[in-house]
């Protein structure tokens, strides 16, 4: 799949996940979130795997694994009441990192196009 297609999917899924989150459509939000992270991870892989493997792992850890762990923690806490602290603050982290991931991928793509 060409990178620009993945970028379009990432952009659309980001907007869709934002809208579904805002209107509390949990199932739609889960699906769009999955699509967003899948498309962005694949895009990062396509753009960085050959020459910038460390950058790829950094992005995958900070922008993909970390927010997903945050979300899983929040969901577990919501249903199992695991922690004393109110874990809803992790949503701030998630919503700061999600657009950042898209912007990072977009910038890498633009730099690649310029250098090509």
């Amino acid at each position, binding site marked *: 799949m060409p990178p620009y297609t993945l970028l379009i999917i990432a952009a659309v899924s980001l907007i869709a996940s934002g809208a579904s989150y805002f209107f*509390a459509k949990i199932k739609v939000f889960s699906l769009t979130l999955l699509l967003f992270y899948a498309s962005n991870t694949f895009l990062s892989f396509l753009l960085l795997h050959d020459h910038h493997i460390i950058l790829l792992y950094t992005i995958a850890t900070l922008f993909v694994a970390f927010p997903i762990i945050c979300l899983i923690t929040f969901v577990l806490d919501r249903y199992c009441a695991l922690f004393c602290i*109110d874990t809803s603050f992790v949503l701030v982290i998630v*919503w700061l990192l999600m657009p950042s991931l898209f912007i990072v991928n977009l910038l890498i793509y633009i730099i690649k196009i310029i250098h090509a």
Partner: protein
Amino acid sequence: MPESHKKIFISAGDASGDIHGANLMRCLLEKDQHIDFYGLGKEHMKQAGLHCLHDMSTKSLMWLHVLAELSTFLKIKKDCICFFRQERPCAVILIDYCGFNFYLAKAARKLGIPVIYYVSPQLWAHGPWRVNKMKKLVDKLLVIYPFEKPFYDTAGISTTYVGHPLFDEIYKEGVDEGVVSELKKQLGETIVSFLPGSRKQEIVRLLPLFLKSSVQINQTIPSARFLISCSEEQNFDLVNTIVKRSTVPYKIVIGKIHEVIKASSLCIASAGTVTLQIANYLKPMIVVYKISPFAYFIAKPFFATPYIALVNKLADKMIAPELLMYRENYTWLANQATQLLCNDQKRQNGIHELSLLMDRIGKPGASERAAGEIFKLISPA
């Protein structure tokens, strides 16, 4: 032989919790003089006889402040747990401040000490799923709003509605009528008061909005005069700095919140307990809360109640105009204020609804009832 003393651990972190805690301690001591109170509190609780393990006066649980004081909070928690282990208090009473008190509840429950939570965090407003945490951590819940009881009962928590301790304070303190008549003499009959809250962040967010709306109100009603309630002296400089930028003259009153409300024709307030104080004096009010667009986006899916004003939530209908803003909608505020000042029918309707509400909830005796419930739990049958 001297009668053995009961030890009760009590914890409050914020200013209102400190006042409610002190009143509760006095009511418990009236029932049994042989109670020793240990725990966390501030000036009022210390005056009521608290053996203070840590003074909470300078501790803040707001956002990054927690991180800055993390080591202090860990030390406080450790000391409290040591106290639980060594002294085995007959009960742990926690007052609001759930960000920290939930940790103490967990520690006390682990040691088999009964946990009583007085003034529940507003889980019904945002994040109602946290009721499961409450269920795990608390033996008895003493709630201050009538709608809270069915909410917690449904979750299976033993809950008693005791009423709002604020009304104890109001009836105890009373109003200085001299100050009220002096304010009216100085400012005239059409006084609009602004009550932006006690937190600095709230003042910074709301006061400029209030001031912008006052310019519009003043254009429509030139006789209107404006009062700003500065609930704490430490916020005076901040309020004064913001007010200096405005073109309309204002009078700033430090403290004396009851007098400010009583002298007013209309109150424009931040969402919070202050709306109950305004309702107590049957004054028409507009309730505003302002958050950043990002915070609104994050929090929106978790709003569990359609109202931001306590009076509207308590009445379960919109008896006072309210708006949760994420941008400065001062025109809305000015329009609502003008309507409430000029439209007598609307004004009287609002006052009538407030009087119905106050007939239902505005009674003193909450601390006494809470003490009674606690006493039942700690006294052997």
